[in-house]
């Protein structure tokens, strides 16, 4: 059994199907990414996972506990930042963080100090939240999601408003948390970041999961583009496109020898062979299409 499991969740809001039969899984110590165009349903899915929304159909299980039925049992193990940081405007960052950890009855001065140091928020902890910049707010929002040391961390576009240095530190923090056995689910529009830190990536489009990528496998997956003269031969299971009057065969590493032999047997002239490593961006464009990416 997976430690976090979304089972066939559908969410309808104002007669509109926002999520359609979504299923996903996350194991202990796994960093799971959720990517998709704006309006694809990522935030809604996060809200269902954190019990902000009730699913119209389907269930969410966390440590085998039905989230909708027994949320209280597991709530202290869930920390989240969804959309913008929702904290008390008239309290300082420190007061907000103290309040959250006390409400969970899990205040630990060591964790508090560690989180503040990791995110470098010490210098503006005593500033009222409504006086903080967007970047400061975002960092405090991330701190608020992890201050009570939850096992499950849900972060919706956590790198929004962060500067480059903070993004690097944030990625390091996520990796550290994962090595401590935390399960992290996050979304981001910066695909290179998702690719760098996630073990598994779900692509969401129009409220449906259209692909699940094992990032480790994807990183090692090499494809070859074989540029040949035009031919009429039918080759099963090999994507072929036409480019500048040439045929381009997209071939996986294990298929390469067989295809080259076959082309040679049929006297098809090969112009060049190009190695292509599969990036998440390419995979994303391939699945979503250019129009959506615009």
């Amino acid at each position, binding site marked *: 059994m997976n430690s976090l499991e979304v089972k066939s969740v559908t969410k309808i809001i104002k007669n509109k199907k926002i999520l359609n039969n979504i299923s996903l899984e996350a194991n202990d110590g796994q960093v799971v990414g959720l990517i998709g165009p704006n309006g694809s349903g990522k935030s809604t899915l996060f*809200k269902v996972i*954190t019990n*902000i929304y009730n699913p119209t159909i389907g269930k969410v299980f966390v440590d085998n506990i039905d989230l909708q039925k027994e949320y209280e049992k597991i*709530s202290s193990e*869930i920390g989240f930042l969804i959309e913008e940081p*929702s904290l*008390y405007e*008239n*309290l300082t960052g420190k007061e907000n963080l103290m309040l959250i950890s006390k409400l*969970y009855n899990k205040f630990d001065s060591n964790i508090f100090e560690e989180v503040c140091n990791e995110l470098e928020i010490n210098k503006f902890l005593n500033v009222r939240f409504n006086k903080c910049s967007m970047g400061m707010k975002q960092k405090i929002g991330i701190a608020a999601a992890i201050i009570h040391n939850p096992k499950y961390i849900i972060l919706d576009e956590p790198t929004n408003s962060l500067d480059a240095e903070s993004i690097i530190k944030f990625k390091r923090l996520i990796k550290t948390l994962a090595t401590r056995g935390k399960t992290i689910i996050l979304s981001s529009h910066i695909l290179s970041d998702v690719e760098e830190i996630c073990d598994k990536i779900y692509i969401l489009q129009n409220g449906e999961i259209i692909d699940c990528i094992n990032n480790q496998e994807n990183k090692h997956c090499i494809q070859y583009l074989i540029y040949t003269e035009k031919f009429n031969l039918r080759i099963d299971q090999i994507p072929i496109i036409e480019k500048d009057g040439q045929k381009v065969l997209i071939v996986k590493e294990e298929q390469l020898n067989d295809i080259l032999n076959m082309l040679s047997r049929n006297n098809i002239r090969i112009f060049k062979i190009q190695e292509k490593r599969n990036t998440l961006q390419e995979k994303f464009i391939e699945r979503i299409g250019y129009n959506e990416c615009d």
Partner: protein
Amino acid sequence: MNVIKLEIEKCIKERKYIAPLISIVFFIAISAYFASHDPRGRDYFTYTYYVFILNCRVIFPIIVAIFFTNVLVKEFEKKTARIHFLKPYGREKALLYKYIAGSVIISIIFILTFFVYELILLIVFKIKGLEIFNIYEFSFKEFYLRAYSTLLLQIVFLITFGAMVFIIGIITKKGIITILISLLILISEQRGLFLDIIPKRILFLSTAAKYNYMLQLDKMVYISYLYDLMLNISTLLGFILISFLLIRRIELD
């Protein structure tokens, strides 16, 4: 208990008491002005008490509507409801703690206002050389019993009204709409518009300031008083139950 304390601390740090305090200072100033200019022959205690309790029908419910809306609905508007209601103790208890914290604050403000108001008017009456206390036909003990039992009923009425504001707030999730609906209900009751639908005997709203004349009665109507107190308490419990049912079902966004 810890959560209620945190909730009270949060209300104080967020300065949610400012709006009620400003309204009360305004209330005391106006009442003091009228009392010093036109005491209409009444003595200090009877007059100040009469004015104070009479205002429980109007000014204090408005303050309560604004305050309880601030306490609850702002959490939805600012999306901090996610912090408050998704905690290990559950949504119902989170709502109850919030309600208790709000009720404690509003009760303290109400009691403080009463005593500050009495004190200010005592000074005003003394300066003006007006009559401080008439000889009543009943004892001082009876006098205090009447005065404080009426105050108690007003506090229970106000926190019951606050529970009603909570229900409206949970449904609408919009501050200004919650305040407007609450005030509309208040005005409608005062205009007698509910009487066709709900008998006065079971309408808690009709108990507001009902005993402002208590100090002028020969004989106190304790049976009626106790009935109204119980009516408020049972309505309050009913409202809390409805709030529990609603908060479980709503989405915190």
